């Protein structure tokens, strides 16, 4: 519904500015997550420190909030414009929390690197890939205004949850069999939890994208209901 530009060019510019900052914060959070995982898996504390030191995402969240508030009071957006602003502000908040998870992973990574290497670190890799894919797909769905793609992200959270359960079980076994490595295992458990949380936050971004595009709030609905409400054919 959004192909006609607004008569008021400043309104158009403000909406586009907000949108590009939302996309930027989502993209930076994704980069922080990938950088944290790379630093952890390659054992490079310098890379982990880069993620911990990042402040751009925090600042950008403040910018998006300020821009959103200004659009609300200056232009009184309605319909899809209003949904775009509300969804954009919420997506920025979720992206910032993803970046916080990336920082947490980096901090725990530094602790792990101080311990003797354990082979169980590899357990996090499939989970990290799945969480990162969910975030990329949720961001792409927002960028492309693709409600179907967003719903697919919501659906894919099941796989991530399954991976988390498996990894957690595997790690519990490792703690039982090699309690002497507990100091290395505990931060791995926290990282697994962070990655599972990243998946949840990516789902939030996807749900907000569906809201922006379809005017349907699918939060707290089961997948059948969400597919019915949105009219999207979902392969559940």
């Amino acid at each position, binding site marked *: 519904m959004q192909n*006609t530009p607004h*008569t*008021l060019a400043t309104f158009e510019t403000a909406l586009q500015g907000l949108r590009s900052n939302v996309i930027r914060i989502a993209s930076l959070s994704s980069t922080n997550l990938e950088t944290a995982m790379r630093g952890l898996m390659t054992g490079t504390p310098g890379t982990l420190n880069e993620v911990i030191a990042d402040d751009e995402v925090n600042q950008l969240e403040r910018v998006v909030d300020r821009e959103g508030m200004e659009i609300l009071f200056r232009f009184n957006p309605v319909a899809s*414009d209003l*949904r775009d602003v509300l969804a954009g502000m919420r997506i920025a908040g979720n992206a910032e929390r993803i970046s916080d998870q990336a920082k947490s992973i980096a901090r725990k990574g530094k602790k792990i690197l101080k311990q003797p290497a354990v082979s169980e670190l590899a357990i996090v890799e499939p989970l990290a890939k799945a969480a990162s894919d969910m975030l990329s797909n949720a961001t792409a769905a927002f960028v492309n205004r693709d409600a179907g793609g967003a719903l697919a992200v919501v659906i894919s959270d099941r796989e991530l949850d399954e991976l988390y359960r498996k990894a957690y079980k595997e790690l519990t076994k490792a703690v039982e069999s090699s309690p002497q490595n507990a100091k290395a295992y505990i931060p791995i458990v926290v990282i697994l939890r962070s990655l599972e949380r990243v998946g949840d936050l990516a789902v939030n971004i996807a749900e907000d994208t569906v809201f922006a595009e379809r005017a349907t709030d699918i939060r707290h609905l089961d997948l059948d209901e969400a597919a019915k409400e949105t009219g999207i054919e979902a392969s559940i």
Partner: protein
Amino acid sequence: MIATMETSMSEEEQQEEVLTPGRKTVDSPVTGGKPSNVVIEVDHVNFGYVPKKDVLLDISMDINQGEVTAFIGPSGCGKSTLLRCLNRMNDLIPTAGISKGEIRILGTNIHAPEVDVIELRKHVGMVFQKYNPFPKSIFENVAFGLRIQGINDKQKLEQAVEESLRLSGLWEEVKDRLNASGLGLSGGQQQRLCIARAIAVRPKIILMDEPCSALDPISTATIEELITTLKKDFTIVIVTHNMQQAARVSDRTGFFYLGNLIEMDLTTTMFSNPAKKQTEDYISGRFG
């Protein structure tokens, strides 16, 4: 029905009247899903100011009792024209007329030959864009319609004037100077005086044609608050160019464009997820 209707009915009588069998009712989300009576039915109406040149095209809508309905759309779209059809204000233009369809108020075709226009306007009051008090005292402005109806009993008039001024939120401001000229009031007060004048005869419906366009923001807010209060007792139809005003005060909104009713729905739906692209483009400032 309008030709014979009592001008003042008790609540019980009104309740009985609205439950008249045969009158159209709808389940209204505005009333929490309870049946609501359709007060105005616009049924496939075409209207033109000159013959064979219709400016309203096949308009159909139902307006429910106790709701505020807003008409929005760019200048010349037909929203004020339709509003003026609802109490036959357009009858003042000799060449104007409905060429198709009919408008029913409380179940009666208001253009039927037996309908008395004066009687119709007792039931369908109007408030205009530019406040227009008579050059008379505040009291006489409000009492004017009642006096026309032949009510001259001092006590009855005083009671009705006070009640109307209270309903219009003006009583506390003017109770000590009821004999002062209505023209000495501020713009916002004059508009509320006009509203008091309109409601003094206890109409069923109040039509408002851009009632706040000449007012400052505070007076506008006072009138908007008043509209919300009045809808308990009256069905209100308001034409406004201010879409935020439509969003704030109305239960339903109709969007008009080039003489067509493009879309009519609950105001919450219209301003969050309109069904038609034309509506979306207009309310979000993409054209018009």
